[in-house]
């Protein structure tokens, strides 16, 4: 083998290596888009102690792994950052003449990992600096309460003998789930030949009410609700959001001709996840508070002439979320 072959071989190896490294670098950028534009390393260049932190309930008990939506918990942060003096040693390095120079700054967040969004916690109550009231407002199967605390400190630099400022940091997370206690808020849209329609939908009001029961308003609009003014929105207020939401006929109803063919669409809504397999809607009568279907389940088209209607028929939607919260809404169907 001559020298030229060896040189060629080395060139190929070096070229392959360079190209592999280059691919690694590009891959890292593609895989870590959040680091775009970042030019600093992952560790602070100067001394910046990270101190242990524990968070727990104000009564000293552990934070439950499962919280309940809309139910507040008061939490306490416990860390040496609140001590009278900063640490004089960190990871085996002496910190000479340490002094706090500012008050601690505390931040609490609730992260919903399913959406990768956080909400900063804030309280209007007068609380100690190491306390916070956290109210999870939305259910999640994967969440975390995080607490971040930093405090400015000063120490004497061993190298220069001069004062130096830095931050002591503490942070921690408690992984939690948040239980869904709010029933679905489903409604229906009904239309007949000729384009006339009627819609009703549900909104929790007041939102995030606790203790239970949850309350909701039901809104109606359309020509099948009020022919004289289809744009008017009729509100039936203060129904208990749950499995027995019966709208009184004197407050609102859907009016249809006896020979109408109803086109029915469901508006499925839940504050977390609707169990679509359990979703039922159509025309029913009520027996012992439960809907007894008169029309085929979940039929998109219902010919009234083909049904044997009871004395008081209702449009209904029966929805359950994955947590098992159930909503059954009955709206009077007046056949003219």
């Amino acid at each position, binding site marked *: 083998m001559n020298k030229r072959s060896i040189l060629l071989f080395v060139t190929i190896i070096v070229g392959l290596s360079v190209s592999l490294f280059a691919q690694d670098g590009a891959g890292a950028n593609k895989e870590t888009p959040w680091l775009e534009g970042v030019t600093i390393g992952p560790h602070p260049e100067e001394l910046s102690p990270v101190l242990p932190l524990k968070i727990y309930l104000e009564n000293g008990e552990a934070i439950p*792994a499962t919280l309940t939506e809309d139910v507040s918990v008061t939490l306490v942060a416990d860390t040496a950052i609140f001590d009278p003096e900063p640490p004089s040693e960190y990871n085996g390095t002496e910190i000479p003449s340490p002094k706090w120079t*500012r008050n601690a700054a505390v931040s609490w967040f609730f992260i919903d990992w399913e959406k990768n969004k956080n909400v900063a916690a804030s309280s209007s109550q007068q609380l100690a600096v190491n306390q916070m009231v956290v109210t999870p407002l939305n259910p999640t199967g994967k969440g975390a309460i995080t607490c971040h605390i930093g405090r400015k400190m000063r120490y004497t630099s061993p190298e220069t003998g001069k004062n130096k400022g830095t931050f002591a940091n*503490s942070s921690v997370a408690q992984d939690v789930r948040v239980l869904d206690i709010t029933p679905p808020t489903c409604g229906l849209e009904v239309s007949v030949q000729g384009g006339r329609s009627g819609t009703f939908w549900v909104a929790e009001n007041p939102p995030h009410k606790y203790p239970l029961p949850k309350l909701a308003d039901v809104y109606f609009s359309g020509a099948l609700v009020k022919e004289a003014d289809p744009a008017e929105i009729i509100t039936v207020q203060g129904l208990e959001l749950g499995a027995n939401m019966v709208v009184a006929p004197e407050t609102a109803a859907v009016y249809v001709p006896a020979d109408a063919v109803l086109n029915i669409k469901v508006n499925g809504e839940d504050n977390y996840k609707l169990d679509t397999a359990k979703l039922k809607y159509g025309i029913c009568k009520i027996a012992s508070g439960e809907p007894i279907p008169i029309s085929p389940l979940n039929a998109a088209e219902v010919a009234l002439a083909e049904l044997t209607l009871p004395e008081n028929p209702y449009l209904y939607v029966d929805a359950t979320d994955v947590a098992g919260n159930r909503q059954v809404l009955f709206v009077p169907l007046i056949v003219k």
Partner: protein
Amino acid sequence: MKFSNRFWLIVAVMFVCTSVWPVLGQTDAAATTEETPEIPGSVDMSLGVKDTTYVMPENFRGKETGEGDQQWLEDVGYLMQENSDLYNVDAAAIAESANFEGEPNINWEVKKEDADGNMNTESSDNTNKATNDSNIKDPGYYQVHNGGARQVSTSGGAEGEAIGDSGSDSGSESGGAASGEETASAGNEGDASGAAGGDAQTVTAQQRIGIEVHDCTAPDMWVAFQEGAGTVNMAETEEALKAQMVGKIIENMGKPFSTDAKAFEEASYIFLEEGEDSDRDSIPWEKTARLSIAGTLFNERGAPKFESGKLSSKIDQNDYTNHVNVIGGEGKSLKGVYVRRNVPFIIAAISTDNGNKRATAGEVEVKIEDADGKVVEKEGEGYLFRVPNYPRSEYKDQPDYFFTTSAVDKDGNLTTIRMPLYVVNTQAAFEGGRNQ
């Protein structure tokens, strides 16, 4: 063996070695996963300004060195960046054989220190990006905080569970803390909870930077001239007028309390302030000021008016303080102030500063002086001129008078006004449109 054969044998051995070592390494790593690796509750983080062009030196405006705080200018955007082992491609730096579950959660927060030393949240942005533009609009001591979190598991990772269908009561499960003890434990000192196999645990990181944001805006100033004659209900004392102005200047954030000339029949005002909200956020070297004059005393005819105009501000290239300087006179937008002979008047000047978001106002010294700088004294509680000096061509023997005032904030930003003060002959100036 020929040389070429020997060469290829060496190459083959090299390839075998390079192929086997990583596999051996992986085997070792896999072996350790059988022991539950410890996942720390938190890791450290770096945080800094990416482009330091407009970061001022540590001793800027006499600041003590060695504090580690950054010296920023108000209204200048600074690109912050941060980094942590939480943002890597793999979680090897967090714990042996650990894996990340999903992307990190990144939050940028700005806190401002109040008078009691408490740090209060000014803004909180969940960007999920490790860079962020921070533009702080008001002077003061701030901390920019970055909080990061990411789910880490030791193997596989847990899928999101539907919630509420387990029928579990609060506290009945260990959840993601994965420690067996339900209290979150953290720090990097070994009490890490250690995720059970497959359970993802949230690991956090945080860092803060102390930032002194320096005031680069000249103070707002209001000057009121109030005569004590005719139908005007003169304030009993100068103090009463000042008290009235303090309330109005704070209530209106320095802006004129009215643009209707009729609102200035009792007193005439000079308003000198930063202007509209969009102008108030100008970068320090493009700052402007708005001069408004309102009332009857700013023209020789005594006609009521309200006029506004924009002035440029002059920045000091060394300490980035701004100076708004109003010089009145012939040919200027503010010709001067015209007072009547034999009519006593008072002057009050009040200033407010953006240093505390214009939450307080303070009195400013005013002077009337002649061309030589000799101060004209008050007569009683007000000023009174018995001899006219306007028009100047007719009263050349009478001295020139000037009204001067200045307001300076604690950082040295300065607002100054100097304009001629003319004493006109009473009847002609205000009723006849000409002087007797």
